[in-house]
């Protein structure tokens, strides 16, 4: 039986403009596409990825314009649509003043106190 993977994403917006996505989120799309059983947990600054209204468009250097800016929030929401459970640490969200109503639909809160119980449900935990 395949292992269950919990992917903790902590570092946010690392080279997302250059990549036009978040490489950790992208990696999990690829794993899910290959048939892996993955769950994502957003913590620390990465809870910002849960926000629905993000706009990184408009960048240009010289005459070279970026036409496909990163849409990391949408990429996270797409994971949910593919059947990947996506959790976020609710205290990390509150500390950053982010309103739960501003998040994409389908994301699930987990408290810091509930993390150990969450972790216990997985065979492999990768901390990005």
């Amino acid at each position: 039986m395949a292992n269950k993977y919990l992917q903790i994403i902590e570092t946010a917006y690392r080279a997302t403009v250059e990549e036009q996505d978040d490489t950790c989120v992208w990696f999990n799309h690829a794993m899910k596409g290959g048939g892996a059983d993955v769950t994502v947990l957003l913590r620390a600054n990465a809870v910002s990825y849960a926000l629905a209204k993000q706009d990184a468009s408009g960048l240009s250097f010289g005459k070279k314009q970026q036409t496909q800016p990163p849409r990391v929030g949408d990429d996270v929401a797409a994971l949910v649509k593919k059947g990947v459970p996506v959790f976020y640490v609710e205290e990390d969200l509150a500390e950053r003043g982010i309103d739960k109503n501003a998040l994409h639909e389908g994301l699930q809160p987990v408290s810091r106190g509930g993390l150990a119980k969450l972790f216990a449900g997985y065979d492999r935990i990768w901390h990005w």
Partner: protein
Amino acid sequence: MAKKILTLLLMDAPYESSRTTTAFRLIDIATKRGHDVKVFAYEGAVALTFAKQAPHGNAVHGRDVAQEDHPNPKDWVAALMEQATSSGGKLEWTNCGLCVDERGVGEAIPGVGRGSPVDAWKAAEASDNSLLIPTR
């Protein structure tokens, strides 16, 4: 001790972080003991095996290229592969193909493969355990 299979996922580019040295230490001890190690290099880590890395002299040290004897990461990876084989195990190194293309570092040392995150997942599935060492 029974042979184990370990998968490591690395992300840091060469010459940027001591995490790379730590990863090499882990691979070193595992291969020295005859265990099999599978490495999936992601993002900047794909340059660790770039064949065109070149050593340099160091004027601050007052040493020329030969005297400085600076091991490039590709040489350490090759040495680890050799050690694995001589110890009865193997070191399989796979670079993320898209990451390689982005960086133009397709010329890797012999023995290095090209793959996708699915290959990383399959390697982890075939292993006794896995460890991700991400960029921070």
